[in-house]
């Protein structure tokens, strides 16, 4: 299915460049989605939607002019192109000749989620609820959510780029509440990917079971310790640490405004030589993967830290032009209602040599952060905060009591430099990353990593 024919795209770009501009771009998108949730044993909130829209962008010097429209009809597109052109004051330019939008390398979707009967989705949620409740008598409530989405994207630009991508994602999430006397604790887990319904063919209910185990574990949790401690960070969602503390600081928009602590440090040693990290939007089936980014650049693997040295920033087209480099395929947007900005895809530490047990055995008194509820960083300083959703004390080289209410506070550069062990068990988890008011799916991941010392903030005095 073609959203915008190349002949119409050419006319849109011609009109957008009527008063000048170095680059004009048409981004068109058809989105459809369905979601369903289960709460308090009841399947509810079935909802579906279909949208079509486009963004026309003209770049001139350091300025970009954007127009967004709901709809991809000829009159919609030409009107928005004219309105964007109004902001410019130069001489008319001609776009390069456009061919048909070439489909990007796709990811196999074995079972189209929209073809699966809605009743089976409801059954999946009920099975998750049952599994959560069967995990422990103290489980009092479960909330399970299912979402599927399909985005068909076409990008044309005045330099002759014509590319398309067909993106299907599914995700299952569980939030389970456990209760004992007056105490209430919550555990969460998710499973998803750039894939179809086949992702849920083998034991999808384990998502609910893992969430339930977390909640039950927390019922026995002690208050978090306060102070500077060695910290072992878990694999999978533990990668939020890299995402927040390092990844955001490598996005070229912040770097170019000197709003990043990593600005001007390419080639510098930022971590021990056994630490390598990637951003890779081309990993098959992973949550943050796409065929092309939202400016039509094919996704790829970018080594951001190579054996301890800072080796690349993450670029979209605009920032790449400014630095005289190629885009790394990180120009992403939430939808046709948003402008592309440099964003991470799947960001992770490369696996190392150690085992998780070895990392823990080397700690006399410390903290084991298995999973985070989320995190936040100030890229300008690298200062970060993470809420720990599942954590334990480490005493005498062994994992002991579960801990609640812990927060990790630190600085990205300091934490990178303090890494003293990387395990081999790489896993990528499904996150949503919010920046500049835009939410995009981002894969976060890592193997187990040990940090010599971090500030653990908690409620224990």
């Amino acid at each position, binding site marked *: 299915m073609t959203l915008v024919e190349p002949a119409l795209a050419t006319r849109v770009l011609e009109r957008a460049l009527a008063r000048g501009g170095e680059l004009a771009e048409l981004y068109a998108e058809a989105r459809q989605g369905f979601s369903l949730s289960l709460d*308090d044993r009841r*399947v*509810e*909130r*079935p909802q*579906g*939607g*279909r*949208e*079509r*829209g486009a963004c026309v962008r003209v770049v001139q*010097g*350091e*300025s*970009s*002019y*954007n*127009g*967004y429209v*709901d709809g991809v009809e000829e009159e919609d597109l030409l009107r*928005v192109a004219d309105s*964007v052109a109004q902001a410019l004051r130069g001489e008319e330019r001609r776009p390069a000749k456009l061919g048909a939008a070439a489909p990007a390398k796709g990811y196999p979707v074995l079972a189209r989620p929209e073809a699966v009967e*809605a*009743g089976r*989705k409801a059954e999946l949620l009920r099975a998750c609820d049952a599994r959560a409740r069967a995990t422990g008598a103290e489980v009092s*409530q479960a*909330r399970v959510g299912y979402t599927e989405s399909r985005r068909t994207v076409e990008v044309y630009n005045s330099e002759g780029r014509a590319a398309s991508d067909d993106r299907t994602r599914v995700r299952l999430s569980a939030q389970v*509440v456990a209760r004992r006397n007056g105490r*209430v604790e*919550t555990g969460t887990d998710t499973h998803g990917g750039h894939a179809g319904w086949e992702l849920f063919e083998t034991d999808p209910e384990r998502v609910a079971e893992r969430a339930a185990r977390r909640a039950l574990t927390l019922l026995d949790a002690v208050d978090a310790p306060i*102070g*500077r401690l060695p910290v072992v960070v878990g694999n999978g969602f533990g990668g939020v640490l890299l995402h927040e503390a390092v990844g955001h600081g490598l996005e070229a928009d*912040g770097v170019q*405004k000197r*709003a990043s*602590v990593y600005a001007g440090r390419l080639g510098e040693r930022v971590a021990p030589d056994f630490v390598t990290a990637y951003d890779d939007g081309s990993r098959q089936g992973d949550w943050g993967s796409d065929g092309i980014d939202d400016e039509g650049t094919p996704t790829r693997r970018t080594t951001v830290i190579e054996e301890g040295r800072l080796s690349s920033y993450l670029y979209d087209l605009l920032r790449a032009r400014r630095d005289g480099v190629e885009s790394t395929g990180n120009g992403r947007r939430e939808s046709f209602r948003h*402008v592309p900005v440099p964003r991470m895809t799947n960001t992770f530490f490369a696996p190392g040599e150690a085992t998780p047990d070895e990392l823990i055995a080397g700690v006399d008194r410390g903290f084991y952060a298995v999973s985070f*509820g*989320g*995190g*936040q960083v*100030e890229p*300008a*300083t*690298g*200062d*970060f*905060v993470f*809420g720990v*959703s599942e954590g334990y004390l480490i005493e005498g080289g062994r994992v002991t009591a579960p801990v*609640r*209410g812990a*927060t990790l*506070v630190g*600085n990205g*550069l300091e934490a990178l430099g303090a890494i003293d062990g990387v395990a081999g068990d790489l896993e990528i988890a499904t996150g949503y990353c919010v920046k500049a008011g835009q939410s995009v799916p981002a894969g976060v991941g890592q193997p187990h990593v040990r940090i010599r010392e971090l*500030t653990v*903030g*908690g*409620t224990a005095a």
Partner: protein
Amino acid sequence: MNLAVAARRATEAALSAGATDAEAWAEESTSRQVRVYAGEVESLSDAGARGVGVRAFVGARSGYAYGTDLGDGGVAEVAQAARQAAEVADEDEHAGLPDQSGTTAVPDLASAELAAWSTGRKVELALAIERAARAREGVTQVENAVYSDAEGSVALANSRGFTAGYSATQAWAYASAFAGEGAELMTGLGVGLGRDPAVLDPEAIGGEAAERALALVGARQPESRRCPVVLDAFVAASFIGFIGAMLSAEAVQRGRSLFAGREGEHVADPALAVADDGTDPDGPASAPFDGEGSAARRTALLEGGRLLTFLFDARTARKAGRASTGNATRASYRSPPSVGTTNLIVEPGAEDLDGLARLAGDGLYVTDVAGLHSGVNPVSGTFSVGASGRLIENGELGAPVRELTIASDLVSMLKVVCAVGAEARWVPLGRSVKAPPLLVGEMAVSGS
């Protein structure tokens, strides 16, 4: 396009498709954003959006669908999809349209002044904000200065004969300034909002960004301890927003609120009075009716230390044997109504900031928190969030501090909010909240 006509047609189409009751929310908006950097326009964006969302009931089941085509064929397709979606839901005996719909007159939701501003003037305003921030000595960078506005119209129709609509405008601006260099670099945010750009004061917005950054230059990590904490209006608003979420009848009925079963009880220090008010003319979330057509109103939540009520939509009200408080909120036509706060308003007290510091004696003044959405457990209420600000020593503001966390739990915190500042302001970060600074008697501060 007449929105009310589109909403009525969508409702009728849902009934024709077999729904027993239906409701349609149609929306149209235009918005503009100007982003400037280093004295130049960095980006200029114009957006036109339109869409319709239909909630269809089939007996006690309900489903939702939305789309961007407001034509007859488009709304019929959406209505059909909503009715189909309803089939997969379980029955909910309390689901349904409000028993009583209505509107409350809220003056001045839309300002004609907005239309009188050219793009050029809006660019000038953003540039003036950036200049105001850069003009302060010690400011090393202004990361961005942003002006945005929106003008939107909404129509809601349902199968019980209710049709109503309104238009509203909004203009807001913010700037983010840096002070210091390298690892010592500190950031500050300045914001302003109103119904049109004429009420935005570039000096105040840029100046606030600069001053918040400058106040943190030279910040160090403080020692861990328990002490009184003064939350500035931004930070106070964030916490009050979390408490507002826990007062949703939805959270209460689902067993996810620590306030369940505590209506009428003393849950807070009497100094703290909080209301939800969907009718405040200045409130960004004000409207004549809520997301399902219940008339907007003001609902006192905390008064004299007592919890007076929870916030209800039609469904939760029916379940509790109460009346809706007009708190069915919608993010846009893309989502069905759900229980939420409109504008949360904290009654101002008597103390200025110096007075609050004096009352605190020795403690901490927090001007920024990070990691709120991950650091607060909405079920247990425990929180531990990153913070920065200044020490309070001998009743006066002292040296700046950073890289610390403050921790407590929301229930304990409410009981020890022992003084309320006099200067309340709108904080449009996430939820709409109007709050003054608050003095919290004790929190755990974790530093070195």
